[in-house]
């Protein structure tokens, strides 16, 4: 692949992504709490109501994006915290890929759940 100049190094890109996802999560998490605790109430939850929301394309897309950004922001935050505490070398590589694997499991399971509600036969 041809080399091209970019002022971003890898660390810089992750730094920016952590902040971009933070700004997105601020809005969507507030919406999530408000909708599911104040508009609807936690003890009134039912499969059909959850399915009714998830069958809407805009809600489904927002929730999948919410899952992706929250997983990235959370897992990258954990990784940063561990590096900050002095994680280096082989341990750092092992933990990094363990966190990547955990993220993949979380995202796959989250999307399977969303699909089960939305009636998408991919779960």
């Amino acid at each position, binding site marked *: 692949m041809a080399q091209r100049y970019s002022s971003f190094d890898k660390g810089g890109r992750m730094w920016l992504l952590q902040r971009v996802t933070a700004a997105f999560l601020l809005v969507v998490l507030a919406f999530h709490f408000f909708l599911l605790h104040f508009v609807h109430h936690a003890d009134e939850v039912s499969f059909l109501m959850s399915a009714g929301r998830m069958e809407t394309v805009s809600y489904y897309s927002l929730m999948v994006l919410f899952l992706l950004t929250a997983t990235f922001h959370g897992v990258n935050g954990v990784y940063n915290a561990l590096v900050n505490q002095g994680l280096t070398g082989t341990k750092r590589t092992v933990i990094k890929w363990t966190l990547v694997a955990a993220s993949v499991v979380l995202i796959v399971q989250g999307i399977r759940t969303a699909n*089960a*509600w939305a009636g998408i036969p991919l779960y």
Partner: protein
Amino acid sequence: MSQSYNRGLIEDFSRWREFEAGMWAWIFHKFTGWVLIGYLFTHIAVLSTAIPASGAETAVLQAGNDVYTQTIVSLEGLLLVRVLEVGLLSVAVFHMLNGTRLLLVDLGVGLESQDKSFYASLILTGAITVASVPTFIAGAF
């Protein structure tokens, strides 16, 4: 090139006596972050009961007798879960307010008053949490 400094570990005995507002903000942000990512994994695990529930008959779903509805309703029926949810709200609200403070500082706004904005985050978190208690506890008794 970035440079790192050895500041010692925050766990070192009695270091907390030297902490100022910014250090407490850092500790609370880490702590609430760990709680939130832990909760995200638990949340998806519990919601996953929707996968087996989606195979249930329409009548079972309408009656709310499917495994998803039953799991959520029985969890929400426990006072302990409701109290933990209030705790989760306070943790999330603090992380969001302090995160906003960090984003603003990154953008060059409010570094001089970072201690005041940390105290404001704490007070607002307390106020929002207390104001939300009736909604979060409703129906638990």
